Every structure is written in structure tokens, then in C-alpha cells.
């Protein structure tokens, strides 16, 4: 791959990486974080680097910024920024380049901003660090920048602290800081991953606008092909530290050459306007009927009059038929996760009723509800936090059934069966969670939920923490399980594309309320509420009307036929 690229003239190339190899300390799973990669970022273009976690894309960005941790070294290769090779440059020289020639925006704007400094002071600090301008000119420049990144009321914003801003606003402040010295190159490391889909669309738009206006060159790191389709001019695909394919965005997206790229693109969930064909009609009893469910968070103390009241779930009602899947979608803070925890009674509700198989479980005490717990199980979001690190997989799976009176030998047998059913070998039984990858752990989580043969499965963002290719496998597994066991599912997610793949019906939540509920075809092709329309329009790389065009990317499975 490297040999195919000629060093382009420095005039039209802002950043050129040549045969870069970065070595990892001993004892890691591979010797090199990235090995022998080469690419060019042309002036005035957006280059997307895409790859799954562990592909070395962040290491590449940090190498360019000169921000690699001590244990990780560049062992060979060259990085030319505006014609200067920065490999082996002294820390002082690197520092003067950072911010001035190249600057970076990070994934998590909250941890990247100093919580004790006002927004204005942080932007000015960047300029002061490079001795640019006078205090007065820096101040007016900071305000100009705040206007430029589209923050409302910049005069007021100048004096705000980061914790007062929303995630999207914080990311805008980060961008303003990165732009302060008019760098030629902007590196964006997954800048929209932590944001909601509507905010993501706005930030992508902003980056695109600024890039066009200033003729800047942007290196954009992402794991989402939707984002690539939205903004990239040029794409580099990375896998396990190697650059496996590069080319123009149109070329890579339309006719991917490498197998890995094809697999990645195929795994990207696409909005499906089609409704799911229900499996063979059995009895269609209502398994769960929720009416006017409410939960209010109270923090602080009523005594000291510092109480804050936040309605998290507000008058939610829906009905779930057995064997079907209800998707609950919404942005962060919409109350969808609270809803999930209310239904499984990990949290007490403040009002309303939850009729599970005809019995109201909302008012039951923990002791009364415990015998019912086996019937309602949950798959958690974080495959790393949801398994006890000090328990073997076998114990994680059997401890529940044993507590409910199953004999250990019987539980162990069922656990081994389920492990192989979810695609793990039976040897996993005696191992500890940290020996497994994220996707494998999520399979363990699913096996745990299935130990009891539940009637209702609640999946709370069950695939959000996983890479797209793993995501597709897990969705397929859930679908298969539902067809085999007839379990009903509530699938909570922020990703409409994922919801469209697996749900019979979708409820859109906004500020604790369900604003719209209906089959995917209605939600995605003919949304009734303006909020749903906004959500659907914000999905990156996708217009609902154009779904058929994506068919040749190869959907991971065609639901209409498999069901």
C-alpha cells in the first residue's frame, strides 16, 4: 500500500505520513500500534480515518500531535506537517507547532475542558501560550470565535464555566479553541461519538462549514461509516494497525476493494423503512401493559431548600404483545434508560401501573417481586461493567438460578449449553470476564439473561458500546433468540438505525414522554411529530428515502425473508 503513494508536492499536501511505525511496549497484544502506514491529507480536504477500536487510529492522531504517551514510541517513518518532518523534533519545537499549525478536538469535551476556567479564558489561553495578540485583541478574537462556532449569546458565553454548557455546546467551545490560532490542519478524534444524533449532525455541519470557509485541512477519525458518507473527501481504512485501503470517499463507499472494508460497510446498520414480518402467529396476548408510568428524580435536600426536581419519566403508556420487540429511542436525558430500570424494578416508580402478564408489579415490594424476577431479565449496556470482575463466568451465570432454588449441577449444565448457544465455547465457564473481548462479554450478558427462560427481555443500549461488525452479530443473535424462544423484547437505544433493524414497533421518547409510537415504516418514512422528523433527518449518511440504494452494501440479513 505504501509503495503505491508518491510523495506529493508539499504545496498541495498539508500533512503527509510516510511509512509510520509506532511500537508498543512489550507484553501488549501486538508489537506495533500502527505499522508502516502512509497517507496524505490534501489542502482544503477532509480525510476520514476509519477503523474499529484497536485499529490504531487514535495512536496515529496522537503521533501527529506529538502527544504519544512515554511508553509508546515512533520507531520509524516520517510525518510532514506543511513540509516539516516532526518525527524526532524537540518537545519545544513540537509545542510551538501544536495549536498554531495543527490542533485537535477530542472525543469527550467535558474532560478536555478545564472545569475551573471560563470558556473565554480557555480560548484566550491558547493564544497567550503562543504569544499571539494583546489581551484586548485576544478577548475580541475569543468572542469572534464563539460567534463563529455558532454559540448563542457569545458575550454571556464568554463568562460561562464548562459545566453550564450542554455536550454540543462544549464541543463547539473545543472547536473554537482549536481554531484560535487559525491552524492549517485540524485533527478531530471521534468528536461526535459522545453526542446525540441531532447534536452530532449540527457539529458535523459546523466542521464542514468552517473547513470550507477557511480552506482548512481536516483529519477526521471515526468508526462510523455514516459520518464518513456525510463529510469525507478521502478515506483511509485501518485494521489492526495497518492501512488496508484508501481512496476517495465515493470510491471507498461505492466499490470497496478490501474485504475488511466491505465487511465494515456491510455491518453498518441502515435505516430500514420496512416493517418486521412477525413470526408465525401464535397467541398474541399482551405481556406488558404500562400506564401513566412516572418517575421524578429528587436531589439535594428539602430541609435545606436545595432540592432539585427532575421528571425523568412522565406519564408513559404502551402495550407490548408477547413475542414482539418494542424499540424505545431517544436522546440522552430523554428518560429511556430510567424507563428500562423502572420496568425491571431496579428503581421504584412514583406513579402509574406496570401490568406484567396481567398483574400490576409497580407497587410490589422487593421481596414480593423476587419470585417474578426470573421472568423479566435485562441485558446491560456496558459489557465491561456489567460482569463481576471477581467471579468466573460460570458463577456469574449460575448464581441467580441457584439463589432461586435450582440445583447447581442443573444450573451449570444449562449455563454450558447457553454459552455454546450464544457462540462461546464451553471452556468459557471457568474463565474470568477480563479474558474476553467486548462482544464476547456481551454474549455472556445475554446468556445470563437467558438462564431463567425469561418472558420479557429488556436490552438497555445493549449494542452501543460495541464496534459495528460486532453490533451486527449481536443483533442477529438477539433476533435468533427471539425466534427460538418467543421472548418479548424492549430494545432501548439512541441509534435509530439499530432500532429500525430489530423492532416491530418504535416509541420515540423526548423529555420523559413518548412523543410518537408506531411501526418503523411510519416512524422513519412518515413521522408524525416534528421531533421524530428532526431525529430521523439527523441520522448521518442516510436519507430514509434513499434506503434501497444502500441495498447493494449488503444488509447483514434481510429481515423480511428470515422471519
Amino acid at each position, binding site marked *: 500500500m505504501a509503495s503505491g503513494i508518491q510523495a506529493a508536492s508539499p504545496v498541495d499536501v498539508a500533512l503527509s505520513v510516510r511509512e509510520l511505525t509506532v511500537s508498543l511496549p512489550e507484553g501488549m497484544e501486538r508489537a506495533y500500534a500502527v505499522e508502516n502506514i502512509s497517507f496524505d491529507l490534501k489542502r482544503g480536504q477532509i480525510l476520514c480515518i476509519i477503523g474499529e477500536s484497536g485499529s490504531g487510529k487514535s495512536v496515529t492522531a496522537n503521533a501527529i500531535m506529538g502527544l504519544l504517551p512515554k511508553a509508546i514510541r515512533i520507531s520509524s517513518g516520517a510525518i510532514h506537517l506543511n513540509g516539516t518532518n516532526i518525527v524526532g523534533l524537540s518537545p519545544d519545537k513540537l509545542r510551538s507547532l501544536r495549536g498554531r499549525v495543527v490542533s485537535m478536538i477530542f472525543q469527550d469535551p467535558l474532560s478536555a475542558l478545564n472545569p475551573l476556567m471560563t470558556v473565554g479564558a480557555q480560548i484566550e489561553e491558547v493564544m497567550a501560550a503562543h504569544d499571539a495578540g494583546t489581551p484586548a485583541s485576544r478577548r475580541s478574537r475569543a468572542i469572534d470565535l464563539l460567534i463563529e462556532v455558532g454559540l448563542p449569546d457569545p458575550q454571556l458565553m464568554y463568562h460561562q464555566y464548562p459545566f453550564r454548557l450542554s455536550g454540543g455546546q462544549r464541543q463547539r467551545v473545543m472547536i473554537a479553541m482549536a481554531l484560535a490560532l487559525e491552524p492549517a490542519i485540524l485533527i478531530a478524534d471521534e468528536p461526535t461519538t459522545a453526542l446525540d444524533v441531532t447534536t452530532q449532525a449540527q457539529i458535523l455541519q459546523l466542521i464542514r462549514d468552517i473547513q470550507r470557509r477557511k480552506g482548512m485541512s481536516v483529519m477526521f477519525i471515526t468508526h462510523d461509516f455514516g459520518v464518513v458518507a456525510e463529510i469525507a473527501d478521502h478515506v483511509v481504512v485501518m485494521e489492526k494497525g495497518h492501512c488496508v485501503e484508501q481512496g476517495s470517499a465515493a470510491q471507498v463507499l461505492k466499490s470497496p476493494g478490501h474485504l475488511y472494508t466491505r465487511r465494515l460497510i456491510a455491518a453498518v446498520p441502515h435505516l430500514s423503512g420496512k416493517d418486521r414480518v412477525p413470526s408465525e402467529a401464535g397467541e398474541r396476548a399482551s405481556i406488558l401493559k404500562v400506564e401513566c408510568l412516572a418517575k421524578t428524580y429528587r436531589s439535594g435536600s428539602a430541609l435545606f431548600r436545595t432540592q432539585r426536581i427532575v421528571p425523568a419519566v412522565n406519564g408513559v403508556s404502551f402495550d407490548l404483545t408477547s413475542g414482539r420487540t418494542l424499540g424505545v429511542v431517544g436522546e440522552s436525558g430523554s428518560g429511556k434508560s430510567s424507563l428500562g430500570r423502572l420496568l425491571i424494578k431496579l428503581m421504584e416508580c412514583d406513579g402509574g401501573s406496570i401490568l406484567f402478564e396481567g398483574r400490576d408489579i409497580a407497587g410490589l415490594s422487593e421481596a414480593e417481586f423476587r419470585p417474578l424476577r426470573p421472568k423479566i431479565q435485562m441485558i446491560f449496556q456496558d459489557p465491561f461493567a456489567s460482569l463481576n470482575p471477581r467471579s468466573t463466568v460460570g458463577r456469574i451465570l449460575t448464581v441467580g438460578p441457584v*439463589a432461586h432454588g435450582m440445583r447447581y449441577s442443573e444450573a451449570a449444565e444449562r449455563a454450558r449449553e447457553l454459552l455454546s448457544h450464544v457462540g462461546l465455547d464451553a471452556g468459557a465457564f471457568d474463565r474470568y470476564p477480563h479474558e474476553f473481548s467486548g462482544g464476547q462479554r456481551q454474549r455472556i450478558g445475554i446468556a445470563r439473561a437467558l438462564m431463567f427462560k425469561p418472558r420479557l427481555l429488556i436490552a438497555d443500549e445493549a449494542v452501543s458500546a460495541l464496534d459495528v461488525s460486532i453490533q451486527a452479530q449481536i443483533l442477529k443473535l438477539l433476533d435468533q433468540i427471539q425466534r427460538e424462544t418467543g421472548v418479548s423484547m424492549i430494545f432501548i437505544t439512541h441509534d435509530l438505525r439499530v432500532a429500525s433493524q430489530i423492532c416491530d414497533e418504535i416509541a420515540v421518547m423526548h423529555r420523559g414522554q413518548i412523543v410518537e409510537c408506531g411501526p418503523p415504516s411510519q416512524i422513519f418514512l412518515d413521522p408524525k411529530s416534528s421531533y421524530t422528523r428532526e431525529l430521523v433527518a439527523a441520522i448521518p449518511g442516510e436519507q430514509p428515502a434513499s434506503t434501497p440504494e444502500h441495498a447493494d452494501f449488503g444488509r447483514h440479513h434481510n429481515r423480511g425473508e428470515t422471519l
Partner: protein
Amino acid sequence: MTVIVAHADPARWWHSRAVRRFLRHHLALAGIAMISLLVLACILGPFALPYDSLYIDLRARFAPPLTGHHYFGTDPLGRDLAVRLLMAGRVSLAVGFSAMLLSTLIGTLVGVTAGYRGGWVGAALMRTVDGFLSYPSIFLVLALAATLRPSPVMITVIIAVTSWMETARIVEAEVRSLREREFVQAARMVGLSRAHIMFREILPNAMGPIIVAASLAVARAILLEAYISFLGYGIQPPLPSWGNMLNGAQQYLASAPWLAIIPGAAITMAVTSFNFIGDGLRDALDVRNDHI
């Protein structure tokens, strides 16, 4: 940066990262060596030495170290100092260890309960901790020791009762953060009882800080016992302890300094060893170091 995934640890605990890190901590290893030496000497030494700790030989009073078979010399009554030191070590180390076990047990129970239950139960327990902490513990110890009959068991209980609060605080904070982790929610989801979740799911994950606190607690308990006994409220002669040996030595500081130096050195050795071990454990068990 997400690329750096460490090798999966082998399942055997003695291959684990924490053990390897501990073995790289030279001071901690020195601590282990010194403590092992001290404990072995205290257990086996008295059998090997030719004197009994209570045998009085008035002809050999104030013998300086290395007089005949009196390796550490003799005390004002002509008793062999070496054998007394080792017998005292048995008492002091036993009191130190038992006080640590008891205070860790109390602290862990209170901490886990307060941390997991939260609400008014947690508030009541933690305010009790604050109450104990706000009372100057040395006066509490002396007052208790003065009113109760001082036996080794009673001294152990008194020390434990006045030093469990730190463990309780550490455990409470740890459990409170563990409680929010999804695996605890998962444990509730599969219908485990509260006690099961507290002690079998959460507690094993909080063992690191507990072990560190315990190793430092031994050092403090040994010191506290020496302190009480030195002031005359602790272990009563003729039963020797490092503290009351120091007490007996104070009037002969000028004429027979070894009477104070030798038990003093033993206390210093034990306390610093445990502190080194504690530091080593803290570095080895700090989970934040698990990913470089």
C-alpha cells in the same frame, strides 16, 4: 487511546499483575523478610535460648549485651533480655494482629453496610464513625484501659474498638462507588438477596483497599499497644511486652541504655516493616495501574 489491550492475565492468582508488581517493590519485600524473621524468632527463639523469661538471676543484673550467653544482656532483675524480647514480641505481635483482624472486621461490616444501604442507615453508621473519630482516641484508650482490667485480650479489644473507623470510611467509599456499577444491578436483576450482593458480589471487589488498610492497621496497633503499656495501662508485668519493657527501662537510660534500645528497635522494625508492606500492597493493588 483504546488500542492498548493488555495480555489476558492467567487465571492463577500468583501469576497476576498485582503479585508481579508487589514482587518488584523492593521495600515491601524487605518488609516481608523482616517480619518473617521477627515472627519466626518470636515463635522458635524462646525454645532455642537457654533461659526462661521469668528466671531471675540477681548475680547477673545489668549485664551488657554479649555477656556469656546473654546475647542482649540482662535487665535490672538479671532476667535474660533476649528471651524476654522474644516473649514480649509474641504478646505484642499477637495483640497487633488480633486487633487488626477485629478492627478490620468491624470496619468492613460497618463500611459495607453503610455504603450499600445508603439512606438513613448509611448516614447513621457514618455519623457514628465521625463520632468515634472526633473523640481523641488516645484518651479513650487510656480511659478504657484504666477502668477495665488490662489483659492482652482486653487491650486487643480496646485497640480494635478505637481504630476501626478508618477501614469503615475506606470501605464505605469503595462500596458506594461499586454499588452503582452495572454488575451490581445485574445481581439485583437475577434476584440475589441483599446480604449476598453485599458480601459475595461487592466485597471481593473491595478487598484491595481493605488489605492495604489492614497492613497499616497492624503497624498502628503494635504502636498503640506499646504506647499503652509504656504508660503502664497496658500489658502488666511480669508478662513482658515491648511497651512495658520500655517502661521498665526508662529509669536506667543512662546506666543501661540497651534496655531501651533493644525493645525500641524491635518496635521500629515491626512497624516500618508493616508500613513498607502496606505501601507495596497499595501500589500493587491499585487497579488504576492495571491499564498503562
